[in-house]
């Protein structure tokens, strides 16, 4: 489903002409299978977010190639990446990333709007998903009027709106209390089992990681270990 072949990434920081090159990821080889929940763990600065950003197309690898759903996306143009994201990927963010001037309904329907779906179909689909995540009664509320848990539900509804085969989540429970965290993880498991949605989660949290079928550990830009569910060592990469 997602395949990374010898992916390297480095940042250039500092003034132009006097940049300093900071390598972030080194020769990452990774294969996420369809219907899998994969958690990527590691300390702050280990390159977890950079890895997810590469899979999302927000940044491009310095070298190596990335294949998603069999398509080489390494050199897609910005416009093609936008279309690809819309049709293949769903996103969950730590701080939800809802547009403050739009209601929960409008935020959730955004992927449908971008895809050009008609109003009546949109309304039906949005209400269906808001109900599924238990937030339908707050459809007309603005993000500022919702709790963190409610906002994350809107964000989840938005990420699932176009029924993407892959959902990329960066610390999805990072801003949630334990109740909301439990509910979100249960939802992720249900979606994975019922729809076969593939999840790539980035987390610090053991409980979140325990939801995954596979746990990958990043250290200083190197993918170190792959653990099977339950924490037993499945495969040592280095």
């Amino acid at each position: 489903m997602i395949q990374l072949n010898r992916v390297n990434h480095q940042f250039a920081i500092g003034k132009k002409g006097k940049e300093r090159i900071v390598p972030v990821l080194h020769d990452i080889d990774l294969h996420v299978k369809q219907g899998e929940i994969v958690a990527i763990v590691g300390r702050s600065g280990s390159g977890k977010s950079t890895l997810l950003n590469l899979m999302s197309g927000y940044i491009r690898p310095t070298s190596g190639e990335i294949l998603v759903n069999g398509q080489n996306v390494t050199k897609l143009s910005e416009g093609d990446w936008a279309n690809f994201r819309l049709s293949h990927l769903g996103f969950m963010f730590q701080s939800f990333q809802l547009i403050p001037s739009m209601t929960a309904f409008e935020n959730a329907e955004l992927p449908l709007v971008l895809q050009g779906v008609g109003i009546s179909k949109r309304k039906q689909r949005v209400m269906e998903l808001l109900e599924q995540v238990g937030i339908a009664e707050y459809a007309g509320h603005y993000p500022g009027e919702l709790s963190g848990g409610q906002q994350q539900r809107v964000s989840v509804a938005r990420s699932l709106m176009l029924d993407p085969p892959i959902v990329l989540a960066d610390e999805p429970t990072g801003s949630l209390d334990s109740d909301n965290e439990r509910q979100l993880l249960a939802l992720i498991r249900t979606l994975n089992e019922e729809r076969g949605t593939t999840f790539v989660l980035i987390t610090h949290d053991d409980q979140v990681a325990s939801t995954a079928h596979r746990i990958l550990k990043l250290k200083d830009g190197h993918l170190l270990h792959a653990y099977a569910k339950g924490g037993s060592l499945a495969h040592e990469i280095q």
Partner: protein
Amino acid sequence: MKFNDQFRFVRQNMKKNKTRLFMTVLATAMGCSFLIVLASVGFGLQKSIVDKAVGDRMVTSIEIYGIQSDNDEGRQIGTSNLDYLRTVDHVKAVTYRNYIQQSIMITLDGTDVNSSSTINVDFDAENKAGFKLSSGRLPAGENEVVVGYNVRQLPNSQPGDEVPPAKDWIGKSLEMKVSQFAEDGTEQSKTLSVKIVGVTEKPTREWKTDTAVYIGNGTLKQIESFTQTQWGAQRVPGVKDSESGIDKIGLDDPRHYSGVQVIADKANHVKAIAEEIRLKGYISHSIADELKQINLVFLIMKIGLGFIGTIAVLIASIGIFNTMTMAVTERAQDIGIMKAIGAHPNSIRRIFLLESSMIGLLGAAIGTIVAYIISVAVNIGLPIIIRGFMDEKVPDDFRFSLIPPYLAIIACLISLGVALLSGYRPAKRATRIDVLRALRRDM
């Protein structure tokens, strides 16, 4: 992304900072209004001056005064000359106005008609040339005539007196009493009965009146067969025909026409026709010659005024640029979120271009309405001010400002174009917003 949704986004965004939007639209409206009003002065003055120069004449007509003869003296236009003029390329018609050379006593239902003159015209040619009537039609039969617009005006009437409309006479009969003196001095007369079928157009100048009766060639023939002279010329009692010249205008003598006009099919053919007939020795004059010079001067004037007006719109564009740049900066996070979930850069660009073009259109619409109001106010107010302070009277139909629809359309297009240009850079910047930076590197 559908247009309706883009439009909804733009509307939502525009509502966020109403004061800023109002000020930007105001600046654009002022620029557009300034452009239209300034150019309208050029249009208004041109119309007033051209109208004054043209008067009742048609821009497609060429007046023929005569023809140069071999001994370099002007000769009058004869029948063969008319035949030649009709054959010139792009000539639609050749018209003439020949006055009947006697005062015909005309009555209607026994009452005298105050007709100043009786004029013979060629109605077939007039029909092609576009003889303008205020009501009725041109004569089709032999004894049908057209009367002047002011034919019912009484001889001693004052300006402003109520005159019954001449069109009420359409369908009525006129009795025309033609007379001729015999060589022994006795007067003989014959009464012709003709039917009024049309009334000429109202003269364009207030001081002009048209009380003539226009007769066709059929009626003329009847008059001439009675008088036995061309154009119904009367013999002078006691004066020999050879002395008065009557003997030279018998029915078999060569005819001379007056008031000859050549009508071109299009205004831009006037010059070529005038050139061709001038080479043949015809002495002519066309209003098109005068208008060309006048129009050229006004064209330069209008371009100059329009250029100054466009500068005002360009100044307004700085406001649009500023507003759009601020809008992009303020909405960087929203744009980042949209890009993060799959918004195409083109959709984002279109949203911002749509917003700047809506500011431009809104400003142009308000500016155009204001410009029309100013134009009307100037046309009403300025003559009053001139009369009040300078003791000068401005002619009634003088226009200081005139906004033809195409001027308003051009000004709106300029405003829209300038708005799109000013919105282009901010819109491009919006598409380049870095997703990670916009999301505060959250993901």
